[in-house]
């Protein structure tokens, strides 16, 4: 597991989500990247049940339960700005038992699916973010396998991102700045996906013309 950067690619003007994804993958293939199967990241939101809230009227925290096809035997549970728990996939069953404390938000499931590409030591995953039946946006994940310190290889990653995202190259993800010298882990990637999904959910509340 190397340093990973997750970002959103805006839909090109006058194009559908699908067309923009195709444009992007064609660029990758021209660069020399090889197709290596598919990937999927999904996320479900849970509310803290009203009965367990304290009498001080504190707002219920949201918890996100996520899966990543790169780690098929694990389940990730995250709070916003909070700790990230990495558990076995059995954790899903446990959540059903904890219904009294955490309640699944209705129609909150959001996921991204797409193709996995390998280019040298880079792993690129371009996915379509869907919520319910409709496509909401495009996610681009780039992993650089050999390096484990985010700050070490950010300039290198940036150069690679620029080579196929052009003007849509993102800034450094927030998780990169958190711990300066720590080894990058799978949880950091999941936090980035959670932030991306939240961003896309908010975009959905303000309907934007041209997304679909």
């Amino acid at each position, binding site marked *: 597991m190397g340093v990973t950067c997750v970002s959103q690619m805006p839909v090109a003007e006058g194009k559908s989500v699908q067309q923009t994804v195709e444009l992007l993958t064609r660029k990758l293939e021209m660069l020399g990247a090889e197709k290596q199967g598919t990937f999927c990241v999904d996320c479900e939101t849970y509310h803290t049940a009203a009965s367990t809230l304290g009498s001080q009227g504190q707002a219920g925290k949201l918890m996100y339960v996520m899966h990543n096809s790169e780690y098929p035997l694990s389940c990730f549970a995250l709070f916003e700005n909070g700790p990230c728990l990495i558990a076995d996939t059995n954790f899903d069953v446990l959540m059903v038992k904890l219904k009294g404390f955490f309640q699944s938000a209705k129609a909150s499931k959001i996921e991204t699916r797409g193709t996995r590409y390998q*280019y040298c030591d880079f792993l690129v995953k371009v996915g379509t973010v869907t919520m319910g039946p409709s496509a909401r946006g495009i996610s681009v994940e780039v992993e650089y396998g050999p390096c484990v310190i985010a700050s070490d290889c950010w*300039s*290198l990653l940036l150069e690679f991102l620029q080579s196929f995202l052009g003007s849509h190259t993102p800034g450094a993800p927030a998780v990169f700045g958190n711990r300066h010298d720590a080894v990058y882990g799978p949880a950091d990637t999941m936090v980035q996906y959670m932030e991306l999904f939240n961003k896309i959910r908010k975009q959905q509340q303000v309907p934007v013309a041209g997304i679909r």
Partner: protein
Amino acid sequence: MADVLSVGVNLEAFAQAISAIQALRSSVSRVFDCLKDGMRNKETLEGREKAFIAHFQDNLQSVNRDLNELERLSNLVGKPSENHPLHNSGLLSLDPVQDKTPLYSQLLQAYKWSNKLQYHAGLASGLLNQQSLKRSANQMGVSAKRRPKAQPTTLVLPPQYVDDVISRIDRMFPEMSIHLSRPNGTSAMLLVTLGKVLKVIVVMRSLFIDRTIVKGYNENVYTEDGKLDIWSKSNYQVFQKVTDHATTALLHYQLPQMPDVVVRSFMTWLRSYIKLFQAPCQRCGKFLQDGLPPTWRDFRTLEAFHDTCRQ
């Protein structure tokens, strides 16, 4: 031309020699005819025997005479091809049908070619001996027979000394940690961890570095039974490339009389990889080329270059 002339002088003798051979052959066949016919046509047994013996003797004497004649002539003929540079093969040039059997010209070509090959091989061997890749002292002049006795002294250093040198290097570079182990007898194996960038397995023979493998910081360097895995290569292309360069460095840093200096220079060079992912190429200014960061480090200046950007 001289050869042809000298052959011409002897042509007379040749003709005589050939007829002498013919005579010898016919007299020999007469001997066998006589033996085949045996004794016959005489009334008494004694007469038959006498006649046969006399006849046989005559025949043998004529063989003897012809043989002597041939020997005398062969001395006259001499050895015409002796002074030719190609010896007997030079006679091929006398073949009049050049077009059908161009043996002689082909032979000359092959001869020239093999001469040139020998010359060039000699030059190459001279040059290669100057730039010897043998990293231990005293090996050049030692003959194969004496080699087992004349072991280079630098190969039989006490393990304690090797430990000292390695631990001194370990203390020299704070960002580099060296773990020494001896799983197979006296030869040391080092696991060098450079920051959080890479790990290097170094196989030593006394104080000579025999082999290095570079792997990623997050890659496994042990086999299933817990030993250092000195055979498998890294999964990442960038570290495979660095492994190649490290092997080049082993051959570059050589000073047979002072092996500890060699190890120290190699480690100093290796330490420059601490910025493997952070340093752009000193020539093209970029980080990536064909998906790889600058993997080459100059041996003297330790500057970072892409493999194709270095001079």
